[in-house]
């Protein structure tokens, strides 16, 4: 399968009043078209920074980021945020249609597209609700619908279910996988949960504590839908062995974000 995202020797250093922090150090990852890639690492390992660099929200100091275009005119990325980042002054349908609106797509057409994804995310009937009227799980459904409605080349997810309760998280994980299998989008998914990474990802990238480097990449060969069986648990503990030391080191670093 061909490469969709190519990250080559990406480095990033932040300079702030309190000092200089090297967030990313020579990160090289090739992400395949249609792949679900999970990135896992200790707090402050720069995994969010990496995602923001792919999203173009942050420029790397050195290195190369290349996203292969499949079609002209499509946005490169759409991000799903842990904090949902919905616009409180827009109702559900206008939030979902935001990206389309910014691209100048006329109201009728963008509402049609938005409705399609609202339905897909199980939000029918909530079109006119405002974010504050929704639960966390529903908010993130809107966040995902907004990203998908924009039809990006790549879907970026920054701990999207991190703020949700365990049951809601499980339901949304299942829904996400279903939709991903249907749409065949390339997904880069940042998480701090090993179980989540193994449940969702085709591959799991383990990053080191600051400065963030790629420590190891695990391939998840388990059939979907995945169950918490012995193989699953074995892989989780294998990843934990790899991550443990980094997590311990990460605790002693002060937070980046």
């Amino acid at each position, binding site marked *: 399968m061909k490469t969709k995202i190519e990250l080559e020797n990406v480095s990033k250093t932040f300079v702030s009043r309190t000092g200089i922090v090297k967030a990313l150090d020579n990160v090289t990852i090739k992400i395949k078209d249609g792949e679900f890639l999970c990135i896992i690492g200790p707090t402050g390992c720069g995994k969010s920074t990496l995602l923001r660099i792919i999203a173009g929200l942050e420029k790397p100091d050195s290195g190369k980021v290349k996203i292969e275009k499949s079609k002209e005119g499509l946005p490169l990325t759409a*991000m799903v945020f842990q904090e949902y980042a919905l616009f409180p*002054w*827009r109702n559900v349908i206008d939030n979902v249609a*935001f990206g389309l609106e910014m691209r100048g797509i006329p109201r009728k057409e963008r509402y049609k597209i938005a409705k399609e994804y609202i339905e897909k995310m199980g939000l029918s009937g909530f079109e006119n609700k405002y974010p504050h009227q929704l639960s966390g799980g529903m908010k993130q459904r809107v966040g995902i619908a907004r990203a998908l409605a924009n039809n990006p080349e790549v879907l970026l997810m920054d701990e999207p279910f991190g703020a949700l309760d365990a049951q809601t998280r499980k339901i949304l994980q299942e829904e996400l996988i279903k939709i991903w299998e249907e749409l065949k989008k390339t997904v880069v998914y940042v998480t701090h949960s090993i179980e989540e990474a193994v449940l969702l990802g085709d591959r799991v990238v383990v990053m080191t504590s600051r400065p963030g480097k790629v420590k190891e990449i695990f391939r998840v060969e388990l059939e979907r839908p995945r169950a918490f069986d012995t193989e699953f648990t074995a892989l989780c503990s294998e990843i934990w062995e790899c991550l443990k030391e980094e997590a311990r080191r990460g605790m002693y670093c002060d937070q980046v974000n």
Partner: protein
Amino acid sequence: MTKLTKTLKFRSLRYINENLMNILSPAFFVILWELLVYLGVLNPSYFPPPSKIFIRLIELFQTGELVTHTVATVYRLFFAFILAAVPGIAIGLLMGLSKTIRSIVDPIIALIYPIPKVAMLPLFMVIFGLGTPPIVVTAFITAFFIIILNTLAGVLNIDKVLFEAARNYGAKGWRLFIKVVLPGAMPMIFTGLRLGLGMSLIVVVASEFIATQSGLGYLIYISWRVLRVEDMYVGFVVTGILGYIVTRGLEKLSDKLMPWREEKVVI
């Protein structure tokens, strides 16, 4: 009756009670006042009975005096308010968007803001003479800074992650301003407008004491000079009603423009 309908009934009863209280408690207050005057507890030279105030209010209304004064005050208030709101919001937005503009304007505001603006009235009377102009200018300056500062806070308080999302979804330039900055700052802009309007009313009434011979402030002041305490109270009542109407109007407008707001503001 099921438990649910019982609860619902109880709730609606409580709702009615609250509404009833809103009318009953001021009514009770007025009646108590009236009684205390007749019982000789309150001195009517300072606290004339509400009935007398009401009669005087009708009289002043019939002579047309009250209307003239009220119109004068309303005119000054709105003139000053519009004068302050339009550039105030614009400057606040510009300051919020540009660090450079902020660093230029900030020290000027920091210097002028703490001065009670009504203290500048004599200066404006020197410059503009007596009458409406110095009053409007004083009230304008009062509201102007309040509106600038609240608008600025509104822009600066927009959640950073919303800007990230907006950028990631392709919003920039004018669109970013219209679709993100403006609605994001809107609640604070309205807070500024409400505070500015309230302060302007205070300043207009206070300025009318000395700068002019019309307006509700003048009515109150002249009542002191001729010792017509009832007229003074008429001035209080009308000013109070005026303040209530304009702030409620602004509140209604903000509810209409921002149906998405989580909670209603109290003041």
